C-alpha cells in the first residue's frame, strides 16, 4: 500500500510534477501541507469582484480584515476584535481608525494608512467609475476616506453610522496593497492577489487549483501549514473517495443526503454551519414581459401559500436548517428577532387556490431562471415547488442555466438569488434595505425585478436613519410589512455550509463559510 505512491512519484516525469507547484522550501519543511478538494473556484480573487461562496472560504487565508468577528469567543460572532485596525472610535459622522504597525504585504512592502484608504476609496469602490463597482452596495453613505497619518485614517459618512466597524468585517474590510493594485490593475490583481494574510498565493488557475504557501512574515507569526492546495474536484464521489483515502485533508460541499454516509467512514469529521445567508427567489413584479401575470400580487401570494417549505426543508436538509416563516425575522438578529411574529402567508393550498381564482391567470407558463448547481439543493427544491404550484394550477417552468449572465437574460418571471444577512451583524439592514432598496441591483440593474414602492422608499429612509433601537425596530417592522404586502420574493431557508476533514485536525468552521487555516480556528492534533 504505502509503496505505490513512492513508486508512482518516481515514475511520473518531472515535467508533470513541476506543473503542480513550486518546490518546497527547506525552512518550511517540517510543517505539513494540506490538500482541500473544493467543488469550484471563482474566476477572480479580487476582494469585491471576487465575492462568492467559493472564494470567501479562501479569502481570510491571504487577506486580512480591518476588523474581525470573533467566533471563538462568541458563538454568533458578535464580538468585534482588532485585526489590521487596532483601535477605532466614532465622532459624529467621522470614524477614526488606527492601524497595526509592522504589517507586511506578501510582496514585502509595509501596509500603511495609504493602502487602507485606497481599499475603501471612491476610485476603487464607490466613485463614478470604480474598479470594483459592486463595492457601492457596501459603502452606501460614504463621504470621505482619508489618511491622517502613516497608520491612521478617517471615514466620514453622510449621517452618523454606528455600523462602520461591523461593515469592515466583511469584504470591504480586506486591505489591498495600493501600489501593486494600481500597477497591475484590478483584473490582473484578481489573478495574482496580494494581501497581508498568513498565506500568500503562489499559484492560481481558476479552472483548476489555487495554491497558498505559508507567509512566514505574517504579523501574527508563521501559520501552521506549509502549503494549502485548493483543488477543484467537481464530482462528489471523487471528493469523498479522496477524503476517505486521505488524499485530501478537507473536502467541501457535501450533498445533505450524503452527510450521514460520509460520517460513517473512520476518521472523517463532518462540520456543518448555518450561514447568515438565505437562498431565495425573486418574483418579477414588473410588466416586462408585457403580459407578466405576476404583476398581480394575488398570484404571488397564492404561489407563496402553495409552498410547503417546511416539508421541503425537512426532506432536503434532514432538519439541519430551517425555513424563516416570516421574511427578515431571522434568529441571528438577536433583539430584532420575534418568534411570535404573525405569518401573513402560511402554507395553505385552499387559500392559494382561492387567490389564483381571483386573478386573471389562465395557466400561462412562468419561467423561473435558476443557476446550475449554485445553491445546494436549490434545483431539487425547485422541482418540488413546481409540482406544488401545479397543484394550484400555476404552471412554472424551471430553467436551469449555466451562469448568472444567462439567468439575467429576459424574459423570466422568477429568478434565483441569495441574500446575505450579515453585512451589519445583528441588524436586518442588509437583507431588507440594502438588497431591496433604491440602490440595490434588484431595483436598478437591467435585469431588475421590482421597483420599490414609494411607501417602501419612505419607510426605508426612516429605517436607514433610525439609530435608536426601539425606533429602528419599529421602522424595520413597518418596512418588512410593506415588503410582505408586495411580496417581490420568497426566502427559502438558511444556508447550510458543510465540509469534512480527516482525523488529526481540529477545525472551527466559520458560519459565513470561511475556512480559516490559522490561529484558533485550525490546529493539527
Amino acid at each position, binding site marked *: 500500500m504505502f509503496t*505505490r505512491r513512492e513508486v508512482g512519484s518516481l*515514475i*511520473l516525469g518531472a515535467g508533470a510534477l513541476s506543473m*503542480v507547484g513550486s518546490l518546497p522550501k527547506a525552512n518550511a519543511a517540517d510543517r505539513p501541507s494540506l490538500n482541500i478538494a473544493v467543488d469550484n473556484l471563482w*474566476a477572480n480573487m479580487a476582494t469585491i469582484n471576487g465575492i462568492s461562496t467559493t472564494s470567501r472560504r479562501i479569502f481570510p487565508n491571504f487577506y486580512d480584515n480591518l476588523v474581525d468577528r470573533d467566533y471563538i469567543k462568541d458563538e454568533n460572532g458578535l464580538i468585534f476584535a482588532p485585526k489590521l485596525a487596532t483601535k477605532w472610535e466614532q465622532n459624529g459622522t467621522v470614524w477614526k481608525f488606527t492601524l497595526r504597525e509592522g504589517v507586511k504585504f506578501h510582496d514585502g512592502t509595509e501596509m500603511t494608512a495609504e493602502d487602507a484608504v485606497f481599499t475603501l476609496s471612491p476610485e476603487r469602490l464607490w466613485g463614478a467609475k470604480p474598479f470594483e463597482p459592486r463595492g457601492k452596495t457596501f459603502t452606501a453613505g460614504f463621504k470621505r476616506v482619508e489618511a491622517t497619518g502613516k497608520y491612521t485614517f478617517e471615514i466620514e459618512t453622510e449621517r452618523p453610522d454606528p455600523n462602520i466597524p461591523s461593515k469592515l468585517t466583511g469584504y470591504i474590510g480586506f486591505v489591498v496593497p495600493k501600489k501593486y493594485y494600481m500597477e497591475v490593475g484590478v483584473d490582473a490583481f484578481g489573478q495574482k492577489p496580494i494581501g497581508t494574510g498568513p498565506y500568500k498565493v503562489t499559484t492560481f488557475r481558476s479552472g483548476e487549483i489555487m495554491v497558498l504557501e505559508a507567509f512566514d512574515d505574517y504579523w501574527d507569526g508563521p501559520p501552521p501549514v506549509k502549503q494549502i492546495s485548493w483543488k477543484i474536484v467537481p464530482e462528489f464521489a471523487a471528493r469523498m473517495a479522496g477524503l476517505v483515502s486521505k*488524499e485530501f485533508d478537507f473536502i467541501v460541499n457535501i450533498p445533505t443526503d450524503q452527510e450521514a454516509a460520509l460520517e460513517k467512514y473512520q476518521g472523517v469529521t463532518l462540520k456543518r454551519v448555518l450561514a447568515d445567508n438565505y437562498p431565495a427567489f425573486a418574483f418579477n413584479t414588473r410588466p416586462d414581459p408585457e403580459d407578466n401575470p405576476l404583476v398581480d400580487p394575488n398570484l404571488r401570494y397564492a404561489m407563496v401559500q402553495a409552498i410547503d417549505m417546511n416539508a421541503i426543508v425537512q426532506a432536503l436538509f434532514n432538519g439541519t436548517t430551517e425555513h424563516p416563516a416570516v421574511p427578515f425575522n431571522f434568529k441571528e438578529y438577536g433583539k430584532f428577532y420575534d418568534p411570535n411574529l404573525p405569518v401573513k402567508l402560511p402554507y395553505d393550498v385552499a387559500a392559494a387556490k382561492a387567490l389564483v381564482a381571483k386573478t386573471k391567470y389562465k395557466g400561462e407558463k412562468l419561467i423561473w431562471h435558476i443557476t446550475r448547481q449554485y445553491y445546494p439543493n436549490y434545483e431539487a427544491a425547485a422541482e418540488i415547488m413546481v409540482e406544488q404550484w401545479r397543484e394550484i394550477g400555476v404552471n412554472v417552468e424551471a430553467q436551469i442555466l449555466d451562469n448568472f449572465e444567462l439567468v439575467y437574460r429576459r424574459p423570466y418571471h422568477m429568478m434565483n438569488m441569495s441574500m446575505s444577512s450579515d453585512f451589519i451583524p445583528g441588524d436586518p439592514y442588509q437583507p431588507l434595505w440594502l438588497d431591496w432598496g433604491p440602490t440595490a441591483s434588484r431595483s436598478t440593474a437591467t435585469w431588475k425585478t421590482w421597483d420599490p414602492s414609494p411607501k417602501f422608499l419612505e419607510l426605508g429612509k426612516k429605517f436607514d436613519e433610525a439609530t435608536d433601537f426601539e425606533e429602528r425596530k419599529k421602522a424595520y417592522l413597518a418596512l418588512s410589512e410593506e415588503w410582505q404586502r408586495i411580496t417581490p420574493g420568497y426566502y427559502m431557508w438558511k444556508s447550510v455550509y458543510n465540509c469534512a476533514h480527516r482525523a488529526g485536525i481540529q477545525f472551527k468552521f466559520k458560519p459565513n463559510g470561511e475556512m480559516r487555516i490559522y490561529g484558533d480556528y485550525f490546529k493539527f492534533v
Partner: protein
Amino acid sequence: MTRFWVLKILRTVLTLWFVVTFVFVVLRTSGDPVVALVGADATPEEVEQFRQLWRLDDPLWIQYFRYVVQMATGQFGISYRDGREVIDIIAERIPWTLILGLFSYIGAILIGVPAGIIAAIKRGSAFDNLIMATAVFGFALPNFFLGILMILLFSLSLQWLPSSGTGTVWHLIMPAITLATFTAGTLARFTRSAMLEVLDKLYIRAAAAKGVGYWKRIIFHALPNASIPLVTIIGLNLGELIGGAIVVETVFAWPGVGRLLVTAVSSRDLAVVQGLVLIMAVTMVLANLVVDLLYGLLDPRIRVQN
C-alpha cells in the same frame, strides 16, 4: 505522388478554414459578442468602449478577414474569465490531455486490436462471443458512470488508487482506463471485421498453398492488409477520444483541455471556447493527415504510382 500530397494539404487547409468560418458564424449569430463578453450588466458606455476596442463596428467582412488572420496566427484573444492569453491557458492544459490521451490511446490499441484479431480468427467461438460482448460492454456504458463506479470501487472501498487529480502515474490509471474502454471496444469490433474481410482474400489462400504456416499467414499476410483500414479508424477514433476526454477529465478532475472546455462553455468564455475548438480541429485535421501519410506508407497502391 507530389500531387497527392499537395491535394491532401490543400484539403487540410480548406478544412481548417471551414472550421474558422464556422466558429466566426457561431460567435456572430449566437448573440451580440459584446454583451456576451462584458455581461448584461454593463452600461451602454462600457459596451461602446468595448465595441471600439475590439473594432466590432467595422463591416462584417473586415471583421471576418481580421478574424481569419488572427486565428491563423494563434491570436485567440484574452480570456474574459481570468484575463490571460487564451493560447497560454490552453498551452498549460495540453500536456495533461496529451499524457492522458496517449496513455489511453496506446492502451486501447494494445488491448483492442489483439482482441479483435483473436476474435476474428476464432470467429464464432465462445471466445469470439466473449470478446465481442466485452467490447460492446466497453462502449455501452456511459464513461462518466464507469468512472464514478471505478472511483467508488478503487479509491473509496479498496483504496488502491487515488480518486482524482494528478501527481503520480497512479492518478493516471483510472481516467486512462475509463477513456480507453470505449476506444478499445470500438477498435476490437472494427479489427475483427477488417481481419475477417482480409482472411477471405484469395492471396491468403495462395499463401497457404505456398506452404505458409497459419500464424505466419495471420501475422505477415493478413494483418498488414487489415491494418490499412484499421489505421483510418484509429485516426478517426482520435476525435471520439477527445470527445470522451471532455467527460472523463471532468469526472477525475484532470486538468486537461476537456475540462477547460467544460468550464469555458459554462462561463461563456468565448475566447477560450473558440481557441479550444480551433486547436482541437487542428489536432484532428493533422491526425487525419498523419493517417493519410501512414496509409500511403502501408498501401503501395497509393505510395507507388505508375
